């Protein structure tokens, strides 16, 4: 499913839209970077509360479709700038991680 369709359907907003045509195959929820590196899959939307620069590195290395910050959390401007430079999509959801994951799951697995 194309990321821009996922964004419209599950009601999240785009902070950095580096590649909204990216295909989303699933999702992964974790705040542990090593856990994400070990278990997330390329094309997952990564839902996390972590908002520092290393999140961009992990997202890039693991080739996730984007990073979703729940509860309206916003990363700082330098993190957003790095994401733009590295071509990593950043998204913000008003709901909790549980709610975002639930909506994403329901949309991808109707």
């Amino acid at each position, binding site marked *: 499913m194309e990321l821009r369709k996922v964004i419209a359907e599950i009601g999240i907003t785009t902070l950095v839209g580096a590649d909204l045509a990216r295909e989303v195959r699933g999702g992964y929820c974790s705040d542990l970077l*090593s*856990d994400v*590196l*070990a278990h997330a899959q390329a094309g997952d939307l990564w839902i996390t509360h972590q908002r520092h620069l290393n999140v961009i*590195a*992990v997202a*890039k*290395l693991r080739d996730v479709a984007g990073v979703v910050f729940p509860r309206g959390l916003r990363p700082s401007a330098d993190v957003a700038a790095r994401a733009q430079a590295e071509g990593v999509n950043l998204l913000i959801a008003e709901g909790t991680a549980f709610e975002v994951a639930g909506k994403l799951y329901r949309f991808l697995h109707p």
Partner: protein
Amino acid sequence: MPSPTRVIHKRIYEVAPRDLERAGTVSTAVRRELLALGMTPDIVRRASIICFEGEMNMVLYSEGGRIILLVRDDRVELLFSDRGPGIADIDLASQPGYSTAPDWARELGFGAGFGINNMEQNSDLFKIRSRVGEGTVVRATILLGIPFF
């Protein structure tokens, strides 16, 4: 002794201790180098994960060191060498979930205790040598053109 294979590419990166802002720059650079060399996405991903975990361990625990990327005809090697406290019990440190990370690092999502395990899981050959009070050397090798499960 098998004859050594030709070195195609060699890069040396310095890693500064406790510089979390810059942490991740070596693995990002290594990823870029391997993509430019035309490595498959699978090889690039495995090498990038190995490099990120090794780089984070050096940033969090060592007094600094270097990472060497060595690409040969038949393999990609990553060598991590640091000055620092060393690892007293390598088997224990390699166990998933074992960590000596301070709280501030854990709150940022580091130090969950899966770093060495992730490095090993993505390598075909993996070796840690360490001397307490001096430092640690890790060699992670990815063999090209063989199945990886």
